[in-house]
């Protein structure tokens, strides 16, 4: 029993270390790229990369089963925020079709010491959170759209992330084919038939080259 709980309890670090490291990264990016949109894109991508790996951690620690509807998914996301960032967002504003909901944060640990200067008011400072949600859900075959609709940094009363279900990803890429997909730089899933064509094409090319 003791072993079980020590596995489930994750180690903790000071949240300020995370906040400040993230802040240093964002300000470095602002120096590296002239374009704010580019920074927004990079932050989202970084979040995505983290989410892709965090979901493993989450599943192994919580023994979660498959979610049958978006309400369950929302609960899991809420649980994950509690686990990883030690904040508990409220889930609300469900769309009638229950395919869209909001996560509302009273506090956001990422923005603890942060003030946005007027000239970067279009920066989505916490964009990494959206990326994380998108990345993690994609690994459990859910494609979602995720964006900020309110942000305390921009003077709103609370921080609100809107999560919208797009579709269930049916045809998961088999592991062996990942190399090819990264070649053509397609992040999302390519259906098997397309991949087969690609492989065939590559083979024909190889054959032609061999003949020459």
């Amino acid at each position, binding site marked *: 029993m003791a072993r079980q709980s020590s596995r489930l309890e994750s180690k903790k670090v000071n949240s300020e270390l995370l906040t400040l490291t993230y802040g240093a990264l964002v300000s*470095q990016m602002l120096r590296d790229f002239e374009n704010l949109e580019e920074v927004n894109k990079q932050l989202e991508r*970084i979040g995505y990369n983290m989410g892709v790996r965090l979901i493993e951690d989450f599943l192994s620690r919580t023994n979660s089963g498959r979610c049958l509807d978006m309400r369950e998914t929302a609960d899991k996301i809420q649980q994950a925020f509690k686990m990883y960032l030690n904040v508990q967002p409220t889930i609300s504003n469900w769309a009638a079709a229950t395919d869209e909901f909001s996560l509302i944060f009273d506090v956001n640990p990422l923005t603890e010491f942060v003030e946005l200067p007027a000239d970067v008011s279009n920066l989505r400072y916490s964009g990494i959170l959206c990326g994380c949600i998108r990345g993690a859900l994609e690994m459990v075959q859910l494609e979602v759209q995720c964006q900020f609709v309110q942000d305390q940094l921009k003077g709103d009363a609370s921080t609100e992330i809107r999560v919208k279900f797009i579709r269930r990803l049916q045809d998961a890429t088999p592991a062996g084919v990942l190399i090819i997909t990264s070649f053509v730089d397609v992040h999302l899933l390519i259906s098997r038939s397309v991949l087969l064509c690609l492989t065939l094409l590559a083979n024909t090319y190889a054959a032609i080259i061999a003949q020459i």
Partner: protein
Amino acid sequence: MSSQRARTSILDKPLSRGKGEVSLSCFALLFSEVVQYSQSRVYTVPELQNRLHELGMDVGSRLIDLYFVREQNSKRETKLINMLLFVKTTLWKCLFGKEAEKLEHANDDDRTYYIIEKEPLVNKFISVPKDKGSLNCATFTAGLVEAVLTNCGFPCKVTAHWHKGTTYMVKFDDFVTNRDKQLGEK
């Protein structure tokens, strides 16, 4: 978005007590992304270390006031050894949850000190590829320490080395040790 709405300034809010905690996995993954991002912008290991060092300095310079106000009753240190002890104990404890293992003074050079840490938090989940053997991502922490010491009036260079785990070599400017001796004589 209306940017005219009244905002509470960050200085109007009370200072948090700094007890907030987040999951280590979360920080480890963020740090890994920091390293990967930095790597994508440079070609060589020294350049990468420089970038991590700079990021660390960014963090360090923001920690000074925070920790002196919160932990030391707003009193800065003037003695070199006290300052180093502050780094080894208070700073380390607040940031990483434990003190650094050792603080040593070099035998042959009184300007040089070593802070030794067996397993730095930032290196815990990083395996260094063979072709980048000299890379130590704890340069991030080295930068952090350098910024804290330098901005407190003890200019120095801090570098991270693979030795007994990770050793941070702190090399002060000449006048720092001279000034400290004068202070001692009074």
